């Protein structure tokens, strides 16, 4: 884990984000904001009938951390099932970033993750499959 906040992984994703834009085929999407710093991440998922994420896209604006983290997240979750996502913990998300974030910056790093979790729970709500 690097102490260097803006390391290569973050910078690469910030510069050339993975799946940034609008996903036409999205089956669900959710936007999270951090009103304090103005970061915004909209996460869009295409989930198939087996509850597997076929495609993940994000859109938004904000600091390098929030945007790069959203990009890294999209790359990470494609192909996973919603069951797997339910198990996916904030600490794992932070590990994926490969940098050590202060409490304040963790909010940036977890913005996309928060959107993802909201989608998981709202999906459960609507289908009523949650235990």
């Amino acid at each position, binding site marked *: 884990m690097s102490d260097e906040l*803006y390391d290569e992984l973050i*910078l690469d994703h910030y*510069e050339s984000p993975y799946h940034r834009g609008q996903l036409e085929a999205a089956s669900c999407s959710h936007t999270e904001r951090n*009103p304090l*710093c*103005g970061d915004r991440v909209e996460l869009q998922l295409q989930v198939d009938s087996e509850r597997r994420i076929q495609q993940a896209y994000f859109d938004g604006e904000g*600091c390098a951390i929030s945007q790069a983290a959203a990009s890294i997240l999209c790359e990470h979750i494609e192909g996973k099932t919603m069951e797997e996502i339910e198990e996916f913990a904030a600490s794992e998300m932070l590990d994926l970033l490969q940098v050590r974030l202060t409490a304040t910056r963790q909010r940036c790093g977890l913005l996309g993750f928060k959107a993802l979790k909201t989608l998981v729970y709202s999906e459960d709500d609507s289908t009523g499959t949650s235990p």
Partner: protein
Amino acid sequence: MESIRSDFPILGQPLADGTPLVYLDSASSAQKPRVVIDALSECYETYYANAHRGVYQFGVKIDEAVEGARERIARMIGAERPEEVIFTSGTTMSINLVAQAWGRSRLSEGDEVLVNEMEHHANLVPWQQVTRQTGATLRHIPLTGDGRLDLERLDECLSSRTRLVAVTGMSNVLGTINPIDRLTEAARAVGALVLVDGAQSVPHAAVDVSNPQVDFLAFSGHKLYGPSGVGVLYGRREWLEQMDPFLCGGNMISEVGMTESTWAELPAKFEAGTLPVAQAIALGTAVDYVNGVGFDEIGRIEQALLAEAQQRLSEIPDLLIHGPSVEHKGAIVSFSDERVHPHDMAELLKRKGVAVRAGHHCTMLLHSLLGVVATTRASFAPYNDSSDIDVLVDGIQYARKTLRRD
């Protein structure tokens, strides 16, 4: 200038990573000179006691120290009497006190409170709250494109329904210095009172509450080189005497019955409970310090820094400085770098030892108006110098380079 800088112990020390500290966040909270830090230790080590009526040896000394501080503060702002100076926990508390103790019982439907979009949340949300509680209306003086009050439209905002104009002496984001003389004159003409949020203006320029005459002035000790945890509300005696207390408890009471009580005289009526004793005393020391440097000198140094910073930053491409030109503002430069997000900017400047603040600076309305959610703010105090600006400018370039946006 070196002598001022050397009065502040924190500025003499390198940061944990060895870089020298370039502190450009004084608008958020100022650093403390040695004399203020020592005043606190001296109090706790040699004569600390609860204030009020201690008849033991330093019980008297502490009362004299607190009241001495009150007198010096009163003198600094031109208050007619020391009891017009109420010690609070800060600007926020001072303004809430007026909103509730003055506004809640005096405002009613049809009445108007006039604010504007550059106000800090501390001088906005209490008025939102009390107008909602009382059915009064909150109105806004429009701003000009460069972030000043649009005085041409002042008349249409004021009427006999206006009960109070709450306005900041200086914007904590744009640096805009508001024309309190024009505002008091216009308010007086329609019978409205004027509250000035002096959190930013009091530390930067001499203020005299009798000229132009304001009704309330709120400010914080921690921005005036004093300790955290203490602030001031100045109120004209006439109004303070008519108002009911805000907080209730010890010291603000004259007589207590089973279900009712009568209030003590000023300033005790508004100082319920144990005062921030040591902090009030050390704020008095901070006032002495500021008077020693002199507001003329403070203004001279700050305006020179401001002019230089504004010039240097305006030469950077794709960087937008918000607010009016330097003649209309104090030593604050807030900017948007189109290439680097404010949070990244602050984070990357930090590596160069530069302390700036990124965010909405408790002025969300203003940021909506500016069309950005966050800005980066550099603010200056007399302990800063040109070399700080050099480091800031280099830091901005460094941030762009690091994010591969140069």
